């Protein structure tokens, strides 16, 4: 259960990025969560409002985009293709590079600057 510290990191990143708009209200925060990032999305959604308390991000909605595991293959032309494990979904080669699905990324925020 490390989702509260993850949520706190997200809030810090949002605060850093809204410095030019000190009076703005954060409507929503979009976060991309890889299916292999070790994050439980329900727990993160639960923790997010707690991490927002007493910060300018309070009241923001957390929008999660789940990113599947994707790989590129060194032994066939497959690029950036969804897979269930660390092998090529087409030729089954183990020589693959992960291109998505392992990270958590704060993608964007929507601000009300009224």
């Amino acid at each position, binding site marked *: 259960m*490390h989702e509260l510290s993850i949520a706190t990191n997200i809030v810090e*990143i949002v605060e850093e990025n809204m410095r030019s708009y000190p009076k703005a209200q954060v409507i929503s925060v979009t976060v991309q969560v890889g*299916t*292999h990032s070790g994050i439980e999305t329900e727990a993160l959604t639960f923790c997010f409002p707690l991490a927002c308390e007493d910060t300018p991000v309070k009241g923001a909605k957390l929008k999660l985009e789940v990113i599947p595991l994707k790989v590129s293959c060194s032994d066939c032309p497959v690029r950036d293709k969804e897979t269930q494990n660390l092998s090529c979904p087409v030729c089954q080669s183990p020589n693959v590079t992960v291109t998505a699905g392992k*990270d*958590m*990324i704060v*993608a964007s925020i929507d*601000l009300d600057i009224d």
Partner: protein
Amino acid sequence: MGRRIVGFFLKFAFEPSNLRTLEPNIHMINIEIKNKVLSKNDEIAEHIRTLFRKKGITGLNLIGSPGSGKTALLEATFKHLNGKLACAVVEGDVKTENDKIRIEATGVPAVQIETESSCHLNAEQVEKSLSELDLDNTKCLFIENVGNLICTTSYDLGEKYKVIVISVAEGQDKPLKYPSAFTSTNVLVITKTDLAPYVDVDIEKLKENALSINPKLRTFITSAKTGDGIEEFANFLMDVSQ
């Protein structure tokens, strides 16, 4: 005809659902960020990686469930190595210095991090703890993470190898239940094989399941109790700590 068009326009303009969709957009802006949530941790992990490279240290991050036998694996390995490889250990636990004491009893220096409530180590904690070790005289540095198979996979600690430790008692389908732990690691150590006859587990099936998730896993099948497989693991450490 003209009245009908005006009427339609008025109806559209004052339709409550249209007002709701138009109104919030007036003062709303979207800022693209694209910042990794763990970028601060990753930055410190990169410092650690650079430090290890400079000092010629091979870093290994041991992850596994509580009680999977991480400390016992290290104890047996250090006894086998008998001082042939300069090792050191950063121990991570929620509470107590028990594991540090166990490691030090084998003659290997260790430093303990007590996370208090956190279920994983982060790069900042590891970086701070390194100042307590003699890195100039270390070739192989283990970071024994807090017992946990989920949270520990998210945090880069600057290691070269992430080693997943799983005991036979945890069941042969563990890799299928925790795939993200297996896609994050390079090395698998199966432990407590002496218990296999009592816990109804097929070790080959366990290995096969792990390899189905990550075919490149380097696998060791060990028992700290009988010493089986410890030599192979120790030889691997000698090979990667040049």
